[in-house]
């Protein structure tokens, strides 16, 4: 065992390790007054081709559009028409209704796992609306809002969550690890941050081919600690890749607060500056600011001005997943004390302030979303739920490992099918 040098033996001071600790733990009164959220409308909006060094203050501030008066302010106001705003609100309401129902479905034993994005809806829906529908997205696991915004059928999402016989991914993936090439939505991994250099590579390929499509990736602030994130920043900068690297800073990575990814020292947006990448730090609960930042970055990429790193400053209002209980590690008050409010409420209030919406219509819309999800859930359940039968023919387990089955997988497939017959006999259908 290593013997430490005794400070008493020398004049050298004893070293001390800093292990970050969040401000509030269960039972504490949460107070976020130390967070400087600035004023809506106060951040300057640089030219989309600006050099990163000319706009470095945007990596430390907070781009906000929606003020406490529920009005849109300043140069980042994307000036969306009311119809677009209502569409955005509708997507956000739908994601919230979907999350509620799927969470309950997991608790009822219909599937193994689910992840809500409550409080973070704006960070996927608004950027998805700012991108072209054929721009390629490389999401993490909390961007179901992109699929909703792109019109991916709810039924396919639920089939996947249930791993049932209609699941397009053949029951191979953990619930919510969607994939849809048709919707330019990359297959979700589960290994964190791997999608970041992949998005950069896709964007490089698009540039190699002289295409006009760009790529965007999403990663949590906790996962920015992964080497993949830094590799992505390096490659994006080196090749001036037409890519948007989104960091969703929702403050918590399961039970580890953002300090374990370095937030005590600087912002996540500032990671971009060290690479010479344009960096924006945005109020992630302000759908208009999220849209405006993504639109700025998309225009920048499309104009060959290179990559942008966007930090969406938000709050994970619920647990990490159905397997998590945040009451074990953080103050239950944090959600209500969060200084940037709730993204759905803020956008709703904005539309009401514009005279383009009211509470009655909101209530009707929420009800409609809940009913549509409920009806689709019933529809999906006709295809089965997880655990009620082995839905997929056993041979499918061996398909797609390679384009063609080599001899050893054919042998193993035969074995699996034999095992099925041994267990169930030939009465039940088998593959």
């Amino acid at each position: 065992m290593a013997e430490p040098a005794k400070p008493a033996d020398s004049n050298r001071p004893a070293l001390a390790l800093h292990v970050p600790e969040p401000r509030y733990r269960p039972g504490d009164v949460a107070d976020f007054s130390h967070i400087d959220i600035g004023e809506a409308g106060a951040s300057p909006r640089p030219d989309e081709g600006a050099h990163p060094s000319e706009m470095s203050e945007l990596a430390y501030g907070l781009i906000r559009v929606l003020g406490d008066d529920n009005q849109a302010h300043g140069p980042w106001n994307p000036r969306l028409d009311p119809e677009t705003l209502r569409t955005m609100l509708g997507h956000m309401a739908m994601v919230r209704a979907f999350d509620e129902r799927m969470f309950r479905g997991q608790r009822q034993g219909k599937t193994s796992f689910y992840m809500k994005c409550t409080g973070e809806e704006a960070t996927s829906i608004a950027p998805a609306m700012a991108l072209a529908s054929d721009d390629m997205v490389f999401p993490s696991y909390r961007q179901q809002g992109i699929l909703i915004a792109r019109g991916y059928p709810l039924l396919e999402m639920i089939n996947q969550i249930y791993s049932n016989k209609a699941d397009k991914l053949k029951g191979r993936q953990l619930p919510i690890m969607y994939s849809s090439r048709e919707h330019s939505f990359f297959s979700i991994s589960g290994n964190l941050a791997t999608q970041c250099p992949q998005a950069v590579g896709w964007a490089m390929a698009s540039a190699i081919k002289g295409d006009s499509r760009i790529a965007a990736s999403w990663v949590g602030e906790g996962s920015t600690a992964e080497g993949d994130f830094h590799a992505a920043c390096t490659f994006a900068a080196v090749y001036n890749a037409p890519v948007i690297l989104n960091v969703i800073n929702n403050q918590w990575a399961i039970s580890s607060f953002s300090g374990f990814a370095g937030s005590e020292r600087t912002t996540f947006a500032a990671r971009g500056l060290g690479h010479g990448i344009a960096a924006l730090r945005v109020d992630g609960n302000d759908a208009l600011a999220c849209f405006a930042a993504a639109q700025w970055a998309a225009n920048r990429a499309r104009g060959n001005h290179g990559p942008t790193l966007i930090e969406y400053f938000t709050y994970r209002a619920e647990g990490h997943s159905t397997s998590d209980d945040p009451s074990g590690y953080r103050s239950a008050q944090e959600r209500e004390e969060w200084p940037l409010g709730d993204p759905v409420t803020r956008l709703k209030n904005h539309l009401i302030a514009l005279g383009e919406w009211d509470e009655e219509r909101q209530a009707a819309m929420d009800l409609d979303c809940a009913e549509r999800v409920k009806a689709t859930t019933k529809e999906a359940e006709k295809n089965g739920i997880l655990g009620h039968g082995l839905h997929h023919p056993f041979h499918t387990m061996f398909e797609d490992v390679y384009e063609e089955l080599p001899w050893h997988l054919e042998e193993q497939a035969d074995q699996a099918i034999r095992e099925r017959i041994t267990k169930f006999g030939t009465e039940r259908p088998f593959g």
Partner: protein
Amino acid sequence: MSEDMAPVAETVTAERRLNMIEAINEALDIMLERDPNVVIMGEDVGYFGGVFRATAGLQAKHGKNRVFDTPISECGIIGAAVGMGAYGLRPVPEIQFADYIYPGLDQLISEAARLRYRSAGDYIAPLTVRSPFGGGIFGGQTHSQSPEALFTHVAGLKTVIPATPHDAKGLLIAAIEDNDPVIFFEPKRIYNGPFSGFYDKPVEPWKKHEGSVVPEGYYKIPLGKARMVQEGEALTVLAYGTMVHVAEAVCKAKGVDAEILDLRTLVPLDIKAIEASVEKTGRCLIVHEATRTSGFGAELSALVTERCFYHLEAPVERVTGFDTPYPHSLEWAYFPGPVRIGEAIDKLLKD
């Protein structure tokens, strides 16, 4: 077996001899020409043409959008290649030494290898990762490793190792055209000549070896087909890469009538060729340079024992590197050379 072993149809013009680097360079050149989606990327592969010259002249000929240098980040190289593959390109990343591939492992194992499966065919990763591997060049522990077994253990990856310039070209073209991710390990000890294992004897150039006859133009050797190096009756030798030549030289020196199979592809493996040979000879020697424990030889030994047990007249023998890092000054003590192979042959033929 003869059917499996038949050489692929190719246009044989005047006999032309290349070393392995030249053959690889030619394969890359041909594929850049034939397929506009092929791109080559890696550390020092662009203007300079690679530290082993495998990509020399390719950037000048095909442009910087097709052949380019990368940051020193294997994670980034493989990760970007996966994204390029999703776009529709056919990337051929180079990892400068197999010893440096580890920072890219997550992208290979969790991403490239599983992409087709997890997306049910929505996306594929048609990468060919080229990387020089193996020792015998005084590369020390960080320029000598043979990590092939790590990759054969991963479902979804193919692992290919050529032993001659002829095969290097044909296998590399097949690997690039393959729609699955392929790890293409190039035995750097035999880039410039087939190594006999007798390190104290003069080096032979490729020119004197028939495996250096490389047809011009496009041809490919299908993955998963072994090469019959020589037929024999006394025992079967299973080897790949550099060790094919070492085993051949030792058998010749000892006057052993060995049947030598160059596996060429570890996954998918040519099990039929292995079974046919072992059933004929009844004895099996497995040779690889990589460390012994959980090496690919263990898999081969298990397969032969499971499938050919009643034909065996002696226990399967493995000759491998020792379970140590590759030592710099004691390289030849580590290397599974003529003494170690010779003893194993004696043991196999004892009864």
